[in-house]
């Protein structure tokens, strides 16, 4: 028996967890309107929320959720981006326990971080690093 997890909680927990890792660097969901004036910031996007559904018409007959959120790190200096990425990797990769802090948190069995690539956007004059983080959430 597994109920459908609430994605609002996911969002709040991701925001809170990232904020606690990289503080005082600002963390935004999906988009940062002030990108031109901030030398470094982080944006996250949640995707692939899916609990497998098993046989039968029992709606609660579901498995665990393994959602992924992408972390995009924007910095004016390339080294700052690597430093922030390292902070996130050290803190999050392989982590199990309370995710999202006391207010919004829930327990995860494992966080799995995958560094995708780093890049540079010449029009925005910002270096970028993209990480994927998959959560394994008992449900």
């Amino acid at each position, binding site marked *: *028996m*597994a109920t459908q997890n609430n994605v609002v909680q996911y969002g709040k927990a991701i925001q809170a967890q990232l904020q606690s890792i990289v503080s005082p660097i600002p963390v935004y969901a999906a988009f940062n309107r002030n990108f031109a004036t901030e030398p470094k910031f982080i944006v996250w996007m949640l995707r692939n929320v899916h609990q497998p559904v098993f046989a039968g018409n029992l709606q609660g007959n*579901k*498995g*665990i959720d*393994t959602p992924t959120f992408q972390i995009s790190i924007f910095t004016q200096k390339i080294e700052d981006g690597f430093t922030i990425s390292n902070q996130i990797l050290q803190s999050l990769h392989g982590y*199990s*326990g*309370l995710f999202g802090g006391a207010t919004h948190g*829930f*327990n*995860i*069995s*494992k966080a799995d971080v995958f560094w995708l690539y780093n890049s540079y956007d010449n029009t925005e004059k910002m270096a970028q690093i993209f990480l994927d983080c998959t959560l*394994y*959430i*008992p*449900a």
Partner: protein
Amino acid sequence: MALINKVMPGYSATLWCQDEASPTPLTDAQLSTWTAQVANIIGTSAGGTGTGTTGYQIPVENIPPFGADDAFAAYAVAGARTGAKITTQNQVTSMTITAAWNPADPALLLIRGDGYSGTIIRTYVVAVYDGTNTVAYAFNARVGGMQWDMNTSAEGKFTFTLHPVGGNSYGWTTNT
């Protein structure tokens, strides 16, 4: 606290063992006793009360299936359309475990020593932990079948098999 009522990811399981070089394995009754027995072997990271001096976590890559082996007596009934089976209690399942080989890891060295001795019986515990509560499966076993695989295409692997001993030597416990 209520018992875990969730579907658990495989990631939530951990393997623990007594840490003494010459351990006194838990008795059959103690294998089903959480407080001061099974809980002492499981570390706090999996909801137990153990410390580095009461139990080690074994750094396994994966917890293999555990439980009891299948067994039944099959017989045919004259005149009946089908035969029949009587389920019997078979032995506790052996667990073949793969760990990334770290020659300095104290738990792996302990297991290497057990395998070399061949006679040491140690209590092992599989703990499933959701962050709040723990369900534990404890059993007594000897170590056999140790192999080190240093294939160049991957990290070094240390594989060993835990062979349970005794007729009833396993127990289920929870922290609630």
